[in-house]
């Protein structure tokens, strides 16, 4: 069995482990509900003023709305428990006493979580498409759905890898999730503050915040590709989170790499602790 096959086994294991958790299912239901609710409101007669442009691009609004909060939360939920729950439950020994390197285990865990996130994103994307077609009629630019899907998964990597790192460092799932969410909230607030401040310094600093790249990348990519140019959500977010697609992509890559490497160094150098919860 080669290294890739071992990683594959851990990916499969992580997938099975995460799906067995009720809290994840609850968050997924919440994320879908979060998408359904605004669609239902916007479909009411009081919003009949919505122009054709807006109505025909509601799929993108649904997809990006989910990405901006709930999918991030689910990412933090998956990543926060990925490493730490194995220590808490004492199951880390079962796998790490087998012929597998720590690197293979860590990569398998990381990729397994991303695979699961992709599954979550498939559900929220399909929900957005079904709702927008069902409520607002024919949608346009749906050929960009796969591109936007990949862009969203990529943008989620910042907080996913940050919380994954916390999961290994803190070895407590709740603490890791709180830490990840704390950084998310602080960064979000600082970003909003920067958006309303004048001066280049604030603008530059805002772009280094983890939330900027995570939010700006898919929005800015949608704007670059001229996807649903009439989408009010894209237009609104482009105003609030102005930015450059390549810069956002690069910042996401750097953050992800740093957080993953820190998690790896910590994992490779430290003991596998026994049951902690």
């Amino acid at each position, binding site marked *: *069995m080669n290294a890739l096959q071992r990683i594959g*086994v851990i990916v499969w294991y992580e997938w099975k482990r995460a799906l*067995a958790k009720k809290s994840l299912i609850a968050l997924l239901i919440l994320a879908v509900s979060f998408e359904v609710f605004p669609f239902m409101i916007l479909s009411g007669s009081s919003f009949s003023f919505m122009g054709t442009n807006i109505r025909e691009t509601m799929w993108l609004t649904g997809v990006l709305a989910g990405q901006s909060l709930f999918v991030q939360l689910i990412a933090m939920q998956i990543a926060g428990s990925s490493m730490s729950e194995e220590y808490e439950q004492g*199951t880390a020994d*079962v796998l790490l*006493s087998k*012929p*597998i390197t720590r690197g293979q285990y860590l990569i398998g865990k990381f990729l397994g979580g991303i695979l699961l996130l992709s599954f979550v994103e498939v559900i929220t994307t399909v929900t957005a498409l079904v709702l927008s077609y069902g409520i607002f009629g024919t949608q346009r630019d749906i050929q960009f759905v796969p591109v936007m899907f990949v862009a969203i998964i990529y943008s989620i990597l910042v907080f996913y890898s940050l919380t994954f790192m916390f999961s290994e460092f803190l070895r407590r799932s709740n603490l890791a999730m709180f830490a990840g969410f704390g950084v998310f909230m602080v960064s979000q607030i600082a970003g909003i503050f920067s958006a309303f401040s004048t001066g280049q310094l604030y603008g530059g600093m805002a772009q280094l915040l983890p939330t900027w790249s995570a939010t700006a990348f898919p929005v800015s990519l949608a704007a670059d590709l001229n996807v649903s140019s009439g989408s009010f959500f894209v237009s609104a977010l482009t105003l609030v989170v102005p930015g450059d697609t390549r810069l956002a992509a690069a910042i996401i890559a750097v953050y992800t790499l740093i957080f993953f490497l820190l998690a790896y160094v910590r994992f490779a150098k430290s*003991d*596998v602790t026994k049951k902690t919860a």
Partner: protein
Amino acid sequence: MDDLASEPVIMVSNLTKLYGDFTALDSVSFGVGKGWVYGYLGPNGAGKTTTIRIILGLLKPNGGEVQIAGINPSNDPVRALQIVGYAPELPTLQTFFTGEQLLDLMGKIYGLSMQERTASTKKLLDLVGLQDWGDKKIGKYSKGMIQRLSVATALVSDPLVLIMDEPTIGMDPEATAHFRNLFAELGKEGKTVFISSHLLDEVQRICTHVGMINKGRILFDGPISQVIDAFTQEWIVEAELEKVTEDIVSALKGLDFVENVNVDGNKLAIKLKEKKDLRGEISSEIFKHKGTLLGLNLHKATLEDAYLRALRGGGE
């Protein structure tokens, strides 16, 4: 050490492990040869589990080295652990899997084909007495069943080296006897079995070699008979008489092979200088002096005697 030690399968050299100021292991060294059933003894907190976890690469030592078949598991866990099966003390298994799924997962990690995994899963569930529970979630298993399944996971790849940390804890007497025989059989098949246990009787029955650790230091290590000899100095014959007389006691004390005689009512504890069964000679001497014997037992030294003596700092 005998000739098998020239090619140890598990080699532990000067292993040291610190937790802050606490020294969990202090230059621990021993070797386990091919085909040995090695009992690793020690009181709670002595360092047994720490040693095992370092052997498996789960803990990083502060000093020293471990080799399994010449490979350091910390540097190359894939090659080193490919030949090892491990059952931890009070195992926690993934409760969302069924027994069959967990064994299948273990088989995948060891690189077994689907056919091999299917065959191995069925065989092992039968072996550990869980044939009716294979398709049930582990969350529904009792502690004893989890322990059995844990032993099964250790055997998935038919490993050359088995490392068991208190493997029979939580098992009922029937299962304990079954697994005790199984481990002894595996040793006879040429597998190396390393067992950490508190059950001295169990260790004496199935192990060929023992090592004892206390406060992070190895107190003794070697073939079980040598260890008992080294840490116990005498055999005792216990005699019960209808009536004990001065004459009988003096006569027994006068025998060359008797070191001492203690009298307790109508019972005598005759401490021998040699480790031989000399009950015939003793009974003859008692009869010669008109004594009536009600009972005569030889109390040989056991591993427990050696263990307790070693803990108190005795021995050679």
